[in-house]
């Protein structure tokens, strides 16, 4: 109790501080990541477990989904983020952490670490929604981006359109009713024998294919113009491949990859632009792993241009799960005095409505 009251006071004082340095932790799924972010937009360091050869440097293993593996490496990743930035623990102004949604065991590792650090260093603790982090990745890569804007969050686990009305103020416009777009990429890649991760593989094979060869379904949901559904598309492609094999036809992987990718991108682009137009918003951002897809970026950019909408995308490293985006989101929460108590807990199925 005393901690929280003191931190409330401290947060008020921080608002007048010139530079605010936040240590952020993200461990919601496969990656353990720790970053140091200054003033919400400047990344001082951003260490992601899969990006470094932990086995070589540390003798441990790269975390997969396992919380135990997050435990094994998190101290090392915190140290590395600090040493890369040449920053001392007592220079930190606040500690931020993803508290959901995600795998509960994985989240807990980050949350426990962040609480320990915040309490020990006597600095404010900020719990951040994972999706808010993805959206905020665009603040880092695009220094001129300010709300309001529309954001398409599209990754292996999420597909949604969020209207960012102001910093920390969000309106969910639509989301996937079944599979995420990135998940569809991974599964179709597996079906046509391209391996994991599916996104880059599909994109590579699609380059030599005909995107108009097969007319795969683009799903629109009655009465919910901005919701997505990729499960039917997945099944249609699987059936198509299966039927071709049954009939003894030659399966052209390039054409299937290209036609499938085109179907996904068409839906993502059309719904995003329609939504921006309806809201009368002239700024559109893409976040999440699928934002690395060139066809999506190119097609979105060209249609956005025709409608007088400016497109923003994060760098590839910021599009994947990383802690810098959490540090950026946390900065704007801190400025609003929205900090967490030490009772902060991991919430695996945290909904987007809890963002506001």
């Amino acid at each position, binding site marked *: 109790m005393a901690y929280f009251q003191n931190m409330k006071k401290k947060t008020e004082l921080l608002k007048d501080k010139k530079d605010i340095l936040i240590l952020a932790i993200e461990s919601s*799924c496969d990656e353990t990541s720790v970053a140091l972010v200054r003033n919400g937009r400047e990344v001082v360091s951003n260490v992601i477990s899969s990006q470094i050869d932990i086995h070589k440097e540390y003798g441990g293993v790269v975390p*997969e*989904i*396992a*919380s*135990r*593996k997050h435990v094994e490496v998190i101290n090392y990743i915190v140290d590395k983020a600090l040493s890369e930035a040449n920053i001392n623990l007592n220079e930190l102004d606040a500690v931020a952490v993803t508290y959901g*949604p*995600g*795998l509960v*065991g994985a989240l807990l590792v980050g949350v426990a670490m962040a609480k320990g650090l915040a309490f020990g260093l006597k600095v404010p603790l900020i719990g951040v929604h994972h999706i808010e982090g993805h959206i905020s990745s665009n603040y880092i890569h695009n220094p001129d981006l300010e709300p309001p804007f529309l954001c398409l969050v599209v*990754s*292996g*686990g999420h597909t949604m359109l969020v209207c960012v009305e102001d910093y920390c103020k969000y309106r969910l416009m639509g989301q*996937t*009713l*079944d*599979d*995420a777009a*990135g*998940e569809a990429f*991974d*599964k179709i890649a*597996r*079906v046509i024998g391209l391996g994991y991760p599916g996104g880059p593989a599909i994109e590579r094979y699609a380059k030599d294919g005909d995107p108009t060869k097969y007319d795969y379904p683009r799903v629109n949901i009655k009465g919910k113009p901005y919701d997505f559904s990729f*499960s*039917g598309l*997945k*099944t249609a492609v*699987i*059936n198509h491949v299966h*039927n071709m094999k*049954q009939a003894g036809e030659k399966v052209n992987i390039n054409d299937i990859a290209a036609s499938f990718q085109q179907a996904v991108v068409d839906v993502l682009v059309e719904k995003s632009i329609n939504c921006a137009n309806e809201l009368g918003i002239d700024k559109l951002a893409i976040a999440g792993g699928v934002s690395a897809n060139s066809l999506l970026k190119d097609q979105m950019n060209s249609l956005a241009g025709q409608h007088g909408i400016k497109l923003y995308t994060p760098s590839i490293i910021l599009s994947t799960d990383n802690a810098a985006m959490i540090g950026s989101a946390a900065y704007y929460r801190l400025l609003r005095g929205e900090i967490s108590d030490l009772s902060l807990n991991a919430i*695996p*199925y945290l909904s987007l409505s809890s963002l506001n």
Partner: protein
Amino acid sequence: MWYNTDYNLSDKIYFLLFTNEVAAIVLISCNEKDTQNIGYYIGQRVKAGDIILLYGDLGSGKTVLTRGIAKGAGVESRVTSPTFIIMNQYPGNCPIFHFDLYRLSDSEELYDLDFEDYLYGDGIAIVEWPEKMAELLPKEYLKVTINKLEDDDNKRIIKISSYGEKYESYKEVFKGYESTCR
């Protein structure tokens, strides 16, 4: 394959098959909506503490069936694919744990997820891709297998069978399903 026997769709939709080890109920689903209805029917009849293992290829409708089961068990929010996140939890008449083990490389990772605590917990555990469970396969469970029909992309054969005494009575419980197939 035993399920390629002749059946008359306009007739009673379910029938019982007795194999050596278990009795199975076989239902025909005509489309996605029907698969969800079958799930709903199952969901209304299963109880806290039950384990349902879902077998079937990519795109066969496991998540659709789960959506129905969850709805039948009192879940109000929409069930989406848990592939990326491995498990989703929903509040219903009891907690519903929806697992998708597709992304796992081996059963070792399940220990780190406290998988058994959910499996033998106070809710209904629904597991997609249970092939990945290996030695963690429970002794007693309800097995649901979804197979596509060779000649129709939309139809599915859904086979429900029980493993272990605990689920023996479900054979009778599931018998009364009236198909919405037209």
